[in-house]
């Protein structure tokens, strides 16, 4: 097998090598294609004897049938529990004996896998990863064991205020759209998933056509090419994956309260955001940093934490999904001050819509967002994450070079324009888990309680 394989491995195609210049250093992304036509992005880093691979398949938990929500998540949790000739125990012991780290995860729009190994075990690690994705067993024992763990965790979350608020927010925002459902499913839906569902999932959702791969570490392109074919060659050329319908979050103000006997209310707020391919993405990105994205520097932190001490943490973030875009945020504050803190959030939304941001704020945001970016390229693991995220978002390898200019191009006018689209207090969807004082449920949040 080794011999036959070598003969096959010779014509490795290098599509492109992109040099990304960072201060004094370069991250060199090699776009490679295996002899069998499988594409991957590679960053060689021979200084540490480790190889990391991240893989993502388009189409995630949002494609689960409504009555079987959590299917992708259960598959992700059981795909490393036996494959081929290895039962669960044998598979895990083999990983353990070689100290190979291998795991899977499911999010709304993707199913992902990660692999990390000492480079001396690279062949074997890739082989085991390939077995897991192409020939998973889904034996009864591990499936029921893992299902029990997931249900135990789901049960625990029923009294976790952060989880309750988050789930309720998505239900309120997305109604009947699949985005309303949690990726892990519910106690009822996860119980309904059968072994056949898992087998069908593995056969139909993981294809070569919806897969992106990022590899970083002590491995060359010539070594990686043949390994890709061995690992992924048995996957179907085409996965039966579609994209969930485009949608928008609820376009009206709502406050929902989930009563919980806790001293501090957990608040999740948000509304219309934008998707990653929106031309205004960078303006929104900078806007978000100034409003609530920068840890100690944001307007919300200044007003709500620094000046008034109402919260330990208040934050906002962009949540671009494939079929919708969100602008999200949250904080926790004593039950007595929820109303005050929420009003401060709304005041800041109105202010930034009316006045935009100052030249100084914009300049500081740009120097932070560009200056701190190299920090995210400082470990193999982080680079592997970024390689996959870039491909998943259809960004070119040159993005790492172009990013500073894209951010620097954002103007005060851009930010003001985008703020009109995103941060409308009259369309703010708010969920509070706790015992907030003087706050009443309203809008769609009042009806659905």
């Amino acid at each position: 097998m080794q011999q036959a394989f070598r003969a096959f491995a010779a014509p490795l195609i290098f599509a492109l090598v992109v040099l990304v210049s960072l201060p004094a250093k370069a991250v060199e992304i090699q776009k490679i294609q295996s002899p069998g036509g499988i594409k991957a992005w590679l960053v060689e880093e021979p200084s540490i004897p480790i190889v990391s691979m991240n893989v993502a398949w388009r189409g995630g938990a949002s494609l689960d049938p409504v009555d079987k929500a959590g299917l992708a998540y259960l598959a992700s949790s059981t795909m490393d529990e036996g494959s081929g000739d290895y039962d669960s125990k044998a598979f895990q012991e083999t990983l353990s004996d070689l100290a190979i780290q291998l795991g899977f995860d499911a999010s709304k729009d993707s199913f992902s896998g990660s692999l990390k190994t000492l480079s001396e075990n690279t062949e074997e690690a890739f082989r085991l990863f390939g077995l897991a994705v192409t020939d998973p067993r889904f034996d009864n024992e591990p499936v029921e064991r893992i299902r029990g763990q997931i249900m135990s965790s789901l049960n625990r979350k029923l009294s976790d205020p952060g989880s309750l608020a988050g789930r309720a927010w998505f239900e309120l925002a997305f109604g009947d759209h699949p985005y309303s459902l949690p990726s892990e499913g519910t106690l009822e839906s996860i119980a309904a998933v059968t072994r056949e569902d898992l087998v069908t999932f593995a056969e139909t959702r993981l294809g070569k056509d919806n897969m992106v791969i990022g590899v970083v570490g002590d491995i060359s392109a010539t070594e990686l090419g043949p390994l890709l074919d061995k690992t992924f060659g048995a996957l179907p050329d085409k996965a039966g994956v579609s994209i969930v319908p485009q949608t928008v979050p609820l376009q009206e103000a709502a406050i929902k309260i989930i009563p919980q006997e806790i001293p501090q209310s957990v608040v999740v707020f948000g509304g219309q955001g934008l998707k990653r391919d929106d031309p205004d993405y960078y303006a929104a990105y900078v806007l978000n940093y100034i409003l609530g994205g920068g840890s100690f520097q944001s307007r919300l932190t200044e007003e709500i934490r620094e000046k008034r001490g109402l919260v330990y943490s208040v934050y906002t973030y962009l949540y671009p999904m494939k079929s919708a875009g969100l602008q999200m945020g949250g904080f926790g504050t004593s039950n007595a001050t929820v109303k005050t803190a929420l009003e401060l959030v709304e005041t800041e939304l109105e202010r930034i819509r009316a006045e935009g941001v100052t030249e100084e704020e914009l300049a500081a945001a740009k120097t932070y967002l560009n200056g701190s970016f190299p920090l995210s390229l400082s470990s193999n693991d982080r680079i592997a994450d970024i390689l996959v995220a870039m491909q998943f978002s259809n960004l070119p390898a040159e993005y790492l070079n172009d990013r500073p200019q894209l951010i620097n191009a954002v103007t005060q006018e851009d930010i003001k324009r985008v703020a009109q689209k995103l941060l409308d207090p009259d369309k703010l969807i708010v969920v509070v888990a706790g015992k907030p004082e003087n706050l009443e449920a309203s809008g769609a949040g009042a009806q659905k309680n």
Partner: protein
Amino acid sequence: MRPLRPLFVFAVLFCAVSIGGPLRASDAEDIPKLFDPKVTTLENGLEVVVLEDHRAPVVTHMVWYRVGAADEQPLKSGIAHFLEHLMFKGTKNLEPGEFSAIVAENGGQENAFTSQDYTAYYQNVSVDKLPLFMEMEADRMNNLVLTDDIVAPELKVVLEERSQRTDNNPAALFGEQFAATQFLAHPYGTPVIGWRHEIENLTTQDALDWYNTYYTPNNAILIVAGDVKAEEVFALAEKYYGPIPARDIPERERVQEPPQLAKRTIEMSDKRVREPSWRQSYLAPSGRSEDQANLRALEVLSQILGGGVTSRIYGNLVVDQKIATNAGAYYNSGSYDNSTFVVYGNPTADHSLADVEAAVQAIIQDVIENGVTEKELNRAKQKLLADAIYARDSIRGAANIFGGALASGETIESIVNWPQHISEVTAEQVQDAAREVFDERQSVVGRLTPEDVKS
């Protein structure tokens, strides 16, 4: 620039690691160095550790103070952590909030954290900014300014932090009660963030007293990790931190535990708890213990018992017997005083906390009587040695390993030789360590249950 005169410089080269199985190195040249710290101590007592990593043009700059919550005086719980917050509130040279603004404007990411044994501040930043950040960190080592109107809102922030981390979460509340039961006298029984009623009464003067007592270069460790050369960092350290005078600091003497002669049991029921859980915690030696081989044996033991899905406890309780949905063990030698060795499990719906306890105890008795197998030993050692190699991917992680260990009283030698010492652990040492640590009389059992479930 003042001439650099390090008192003590050495480069610790990584020693030979010999391990069984697939990781076996054929000869010494194959053995990778783990960390290669360069160390010096300035005349004012500041210890400087440099970890070079030239993969990316970034650097982690950290200052660790050898003082934490366990050094607090009675009635003042939470002051170590509260001061950590207040260190961002301005100096003779910087307005409140200016420190963080400058960090952000220079593309830096920063934070700070407090434990029972240390308080640490860090910035991750592009390497060319290192001198600026050293200047600012040195400034707040010596020039902090606090006023009541700045301190007051921050006290509310800390109380909200306590609500978020602890009071909102029954498992966290139980954790506090558990630690208080574990330690009758030692301050590890008091939570790092402090008891609410004591936090509420902390004052500006308390914070200043704490700062003036403990924040001095001879009580600190500077760690710089990243795309730097040690000699250049030493020179910068001398320039920025060197001029700060040393001050006398109190001896680090804490109330020590009386001998524990009776097993303690603590139970808590709460309607917010939806899944029952059990744990048992045994007093165990800390990183300052003279018997380092025993510490490494305990680490291997915890890996064999509870390290992941192939471990004894998980394999037996979760996979084979279906008694627990999850179960395991952990031991962390990284504390200044007594540590603990913990075993835990959450029963499945068909089983009770008592079933979990009995099954875990049966495994412990088996290890005490029959020891562990060579296969288990080798698998555990390989995992720990691989972790040591994986750790090299994160230069921030490496900085944390050194800072935490040094601030907890461990030595550079014990850190860099850790893989070798792990590789030398024998099955007999593991069994001896188990016999010694698993003394029922020196343990605490905790049961956390929903209100309607009987344990």
